[in-house]
C-alpha cells in the first residue's frame, strides 16, 4: 500500500471481504496470463486446473501459494470459493462467459461448464490490471504482484505447450495432486498446515530435480523449470 488513505481503506474491510477481493484479483491475473499466451478463453475446468497449478508451483518462483491446500476430488481440482467470484466477475462485466452449460456431478447436483475470458471492453479492466502489476503502464499497489504476474504468465506459457484439453488433465497427473497416499475427498495440503512444506510439495521437488540433469556449471531458470515440468506432465498424460 502506498498511501495512508489506502491503508485506512483496507482497515475498513473485514477479513472475509479482503478474501473476496484477493480471489477476484487472482482470477483476473490468471485470465490475463492466459490471454497473453493465447490460451484464453479458458474452460472452467481448465481455469481451476491453472489455479491449482499456479498454487502448487509458486515456490519454483520463490512465491507463496495463493492457497496451500485443495480438496482432492474426482475429476480434478475445483475451488468453490474461486468459482463464486468468477460468477460475480461475470456479473460485474469484467469477465466474459460463453458456451454456458451444466454438467452432472456423481452425487447429484451440477457444475458449471463454460468458457471464461477477460472482458477487454470493460472500462475498469485496464486500471485493475495496472493496479495488480499486470500491465506495462502504471505502478502496482503491491510491487510483489509484478513477480506474481510474471510467474503466472510464465506458467501459462509453459502450459500452453500442452494441447488445450490437456491442461485440466495436467493438474490431475501433477505429482502432488496425484500422490496416491492421499485418496479422493481428502485434503491435499502442500503449504497450509503441513509440517514440512518442502517435503509435502512433490511438484516443486520434481521441478527442481531437472537441474540434476544439467552440466555442473549450468543452472535452470525458474521459467525453464516450469516448461520442463509442464512437458513432463504432458508425457505423463500420454503415458510416456
Amino acid at each position: 500500500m502506498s498511501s495512508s488513505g489506502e491503508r485506512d481503506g483496507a482497515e475498513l474491510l473485514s477479513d472475509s471481504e479482503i478474501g473476496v477481493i484477493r480471489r477476484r484479483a487472482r482470477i483476473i491475473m490468471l485470465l490475463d496470463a492466459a490471454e497473453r499466451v493465447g490460451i484464453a478463453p479458458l474452460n472452467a475446468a481448465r481455469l481451476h486446473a491453472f489455479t491449482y497449478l499456479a498454487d502448487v508451483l509458486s515456490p519454483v518462483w520463490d512465491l507463496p501459494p495463493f492457497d496451500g491446500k485443495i480438496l482432492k476430488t474426482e475429476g480434478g481440482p475445483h475451488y468453490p470459493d474461486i468459482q463464486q467470484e468468477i460468477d460475480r466477475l461475470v456479473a460485474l462485466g469484467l469477465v466474459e462467459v460463453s458456451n454456458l452449460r451444466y454438467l452432472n456431478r456423481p452425487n447429484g447436483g451440477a457444475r458449471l461448464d463454460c468458457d471464461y475470458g477477460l472482458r477487454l471492453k470493460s472500462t475498469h479492466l485496464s486500471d485493475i490490471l495496472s493496479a495488480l502489476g499486470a500491465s506495462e503502464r502504471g505502478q502496482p499497489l503491491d510491487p510483489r504482484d509484478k513477480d506474481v504476474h510474471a510467474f503466472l504468465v510464465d506458467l501459462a506459457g509453459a502450459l500452453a505447450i500442452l494441447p488445450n484439453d490437456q491442461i485440466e488433465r495436467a493438474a490431475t497427473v501433477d505429482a502432488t495432486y496425484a500422490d496416491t497416499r492421499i485418496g479422493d475427498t481428502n485434503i491435499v495440503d502442500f503449504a497450509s498446515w503441513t509440517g514440512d512444506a518442502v517435503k509435502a510439495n512433490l511438484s516443486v521437488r520434481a521441478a527442481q530435480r531437472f537441474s540434476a540433469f544439467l552440466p555442473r556449471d549450468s543452472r535452470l531458470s525458474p521459467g525453464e523449470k516450469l516448461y520442463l515440468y509442464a512437458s513432463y506432465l504432458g508425457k505423463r498424460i500420454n503415458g510416456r
Partner: protein
Amino acid sequence: MIRLPIFTELTVSNYGLFPGVPKGTSLEWAFSSGLTLITGVNGLGKTTLLTILLRSLTGPFDLTSAGVPEQLEAVLPEAPVALNSQSIRFFAQRVADGAENTIASLTVQFGKQVVRIERRLDDLTLLSLRVNREEASLPTRRGEREALFQETICNLFGLGSFVDVLLILHHIVFFLENRPGALWDENAQRQILRALLLDKDLATQVAEYERKVNGADSRARNISTRAYNIHKELEAARHREALSPGVHAELEAEQRLLDADMERRQELERLLAQLDEDRKIARLEHEKSKLEREEAEKEVERIKYTALARLFPKMEDAARFVLLGILSNGKCLVCGAEASKRRDELEATLAAGFCPVCGAEPDKQDHVVAAHKVEEARLERARQRVEVARADEETARKRLNGLVEEYETAIKAIDDVRKAIEDRQSREKGLIAQLPQASSTVLDLERTLEITRRAQREAEAERASAAKELRSLFEKGQAVVIPQSERLSSSFGRHVRVLLAETARLVRIDTSAKLIQGKSDFSVPAFRPEMSAATRSGLARRMEPSDVSESQRELIDLAFRLALIDVATVGASSTLAMETPEASLDGLAMQRVGSALRAFAASRENRLVVTSNLTNAGMITAMFGGPTSKAAEIKRRRGQIINLLEIAAPNRAMERDGKAYADLLESVITGHQS
C-alpha cells in the same frame, strides 16, 4: 494368497448341552454351501456352538488371556497368549460332568486343502490333527503339540503368524456378540490390512518392528520417569544439606513452579495434538461442504437456465448469468445483496412470458418458444438441498474457525510456558551454583542420575532406529495397500448399498499409527466411512463409532468385512459366522440385511453360519429367500437348520413354551404367521 476357512463338518460328542436326537447321540452337522441357521431360545447353547467352532481353530490361545478385547492395543503380542483357566473352562462349566468326555471335531477346507481338528472340550487339548486325510504325528508335550497345530493352521491360512490367524478369525470370520470392530477400531484395522494385504514376510516384519518401536518407547518413558524421580531425590538431598536457607527456599519454590510448568506444557502438547487432528477434520468438512453447496446451487441454476434458454434462446450468456444469480440463489451477482424479492418479481415476469431484461410483452419478442414452465417440484427439492447445504457450510465454517482459534491459543500458551521453563531452568542453575559443595550422597545421586539419563538416551536411540526401519516398512506396505483401495472401496460400496438405506462410501485417508506416546509420525493408509444423513447435505465422514447409530455401526463394519474378504481372497470362498445379526435392527433393515446375507451365502462356496433366537423372524425368512409354501423348499430350509429346540437339553423356557417356539420356528421357515 490368503485362504479363509470353509467349515464343512462338525461333530460334538458326549456334551450334556447337546444330547442330540435321539438322546445320547452326538451333534453331527455337515455345513453345505450357503446358510446354516442355529436356532434356539436363550440358554440353549447357540453361543456355545459358535464358540466350539472358534476354539477348535484357536485352541487354548488367543490375543489376550481372556480372549479378544473389544479394542486392540497399538501392537499385537509377539506370540499367541495362553487362555486363562476361566476361558479354557468355558465349555466345562456349562455342564454337570465338566465336559470331561466331550470331544469336538471340526473339518475345515482351506482352498483345496482339508484339515480335521479334534479337541477335548474340557481343556481344549488337541487330540488329533488330520491334514488332507493324513494324520499328523503329534508330540506328547501339550505346548509342542499346539505349536505344531498353530504352524499348520498358519500355513493353511497363508498368514505370517498364528497371532494374525487369531486376528483374522476374530475380525473377519467370526462376528460374535461383542463384535470387535474391523473398521472402527483403528488399531485392529491397521493390523487387518497388514495381515491380509501384505505378503507374509513383510506383514511379519511390520508387526515385529511395531513391537520394537512400542517396546523401546515404553522403556524410554519408564527410564525417563526414573530419571525424574532421581532428580527429585537429588533436589531433596541438596535441600537437606543446604547451608544457605534463603537460597534453598528460593530454589525449592523455583523447582515447584518448574514442575508445574513442565506438567502444563505436556498437557498443552496433548491438547495441541488433539486440536490439530480436530481442525484438520473440520477443514475437510468445510471444504466438502463448500463443494456440496456449490453443486446444489448449480443444480438450481441449471433448472432455471433450462427454462431461460427455452424462453429466450437469443439471450446473451452474460445477461442470462446475471439473471440466473438472482433466480437461483436469490442473491444479486452484481452487488451481492439479498434479492429474494426481486427473484419473486422476476419469476412472475417470466411466468407471464415478459422479457426479464426489457420487459417486452410476449408478442413483441422474437424466438419465444414456450411459456415459462419450470419443473416446480424438482426445483423445490433442489432449493431445499441448497438450504441444507448452506446451513451445513455455515456450521462447518464456524466449527473450523473455532478450532483454528483454539489451536492458535494453544500454540501461544505453549510458547509462553516454554519461555517460562527456560527462564526457570536458568534461574535454577544460578541458584544451584550458589549452594555449598555437595556431600557424597548428593554426588552418588548425581552419578546415578547421569547413568539413568545415559540409559534413557540409549533407549531413545534404540526407539529412533527401530522407528526409522518401521517407517521404511510402512512405506513398502503403503505401496501394496493403496493400489488395492479402489477395489476395497468399490466392493464396500456394493455391500453397503444392500445393507444400508443411507448412501455410504469408503474413503481412504492417511493416518498415523500411534506407536509412540504423544507422537504421530508413522504414516499409514486407513479407511473411514462417509455417509449421508437426513439433516445434512452430501456425505459426512464418520470417524468414531458414536458418529452413527448402533445398527449402522454394525452394518458398515459388516460391509467392510465382506469387502476385505472379497479383496484378500481374490474372490475365493469363506465362512462368516454371525451371532444374532438381527439384534440391533429395525424391521425394514432386517429385510435388507437378510437379503445381503443371503447374497453372501449364495455366492461361490461360501458358508454363512448364523445364530438366531427367533425374535426377529423377518430377517431369517429373508435369508432363506422370502416366504414360501412349497413343500420341497420348506424341506430344504429345514435341512439348513441346527435346531437347538430339538437337539439341546431343554431349559425352563423350553419346558414351558416349547410348542410355541416350535410354531415360531415353523413360521420363520415358511414366512407365514402360524
